[in-house]
């Protein structure tokens, strides 16, 4: 089982998975978020290749209203 930290919250996944699959689980469309994996930004193209490992830190961000 894999332990991740996603947007500051602990999250477990049973078995390995790509970031794309994680987003899918979270019902997030890849086009609408930016993924930072362990403080490195992931290109959208690579979301389906890169696999999350135990202990990974992910930040899933997007634009919100701001001044």
């Amino acid at each position: 089982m894999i332990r991740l930290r996603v947007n500051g919250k602990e999250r477990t996944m049973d078995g390995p998975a790509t970031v794309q699959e994680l987003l899918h689980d979270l019902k997030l469309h890849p086009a609408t978020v930016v993924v930072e994996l362990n403080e490195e930004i992931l290109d959208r193209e690579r979301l389906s290749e890169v696999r999350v490992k135990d202990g990974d830190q992910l930040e899933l961000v997007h634009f919100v209203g701001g001044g």
Partner: protein
Amino acid sequence: MSEASQGAEAPTDPGLTVAGRTFRSRLMVGTGKYADNATMIRAIEASGAEVVTVAVRRVDLDRTKEEGVLYHLDPERFFLLPNTAGCYTAKEAIRYARLGRAAGMTDFVKLEVIGDENTLLPDLHATLEAARILVDEGFKVMAYTTDDLVTALRLEDAGCVAVMPLASPIGSGLGLVNPFYIREIKRRLQVPVIVDAGVGTASDACVTMEQGVDGLLMNTAIAAARDPISMGRAMRLATEAGRLAFLAGRMPSREMAVPSSPTTGMLD
């Protein structure tokens, strides 16, 4: 743009060009603090702004909050300018700038490094440090700063594409407290000077543009007005009026009065 202002601007105002990109309107607006997205959209449309600023934040995985602002703003009509609001160090601001670039597919960033929580005044030292690094990384940095001339000059030297001094603290609505410094900054810089933050009502926008600056950025003054849509329109007109008045060249003011009707031709 209104017929009135078209008529007026057409001959006189080529619009605002930042790093080779030209915007018809000199007014830029933020997207924060609106009661709802419908009001936000209508107020922004009323303001005539093309450039709208957005912040980078975590997706709310619990879906309690509404989705991102992107769903509501047509990228064909509006240029989304990512900011680094909420960052307190150069390192943090750089991280948010990179995320904004990835999210917005633009090199433009409104750099903000706050130095004090109560006043939200920028940290000029960290801002300059971050600006240098971001420029090296190919960002087109529009730097939020105070009305300090020397820092403004340094930010220009660092390669910022625009310098954005504040009129007064963010959300204060105190208006243009120090016109001298803003005027001097405009006099001395080559890059566009866009006054950011502090405007509270239309006359603040008008008097700020009359100093000759290239543009204005505001958020709270519109979003927190009782009627944001009317205020959005008021800000659009006030920004145009201030620009036009600056170009028109105001009359000299004097303590002595001067009659506006002829003093000759009076009856016996």
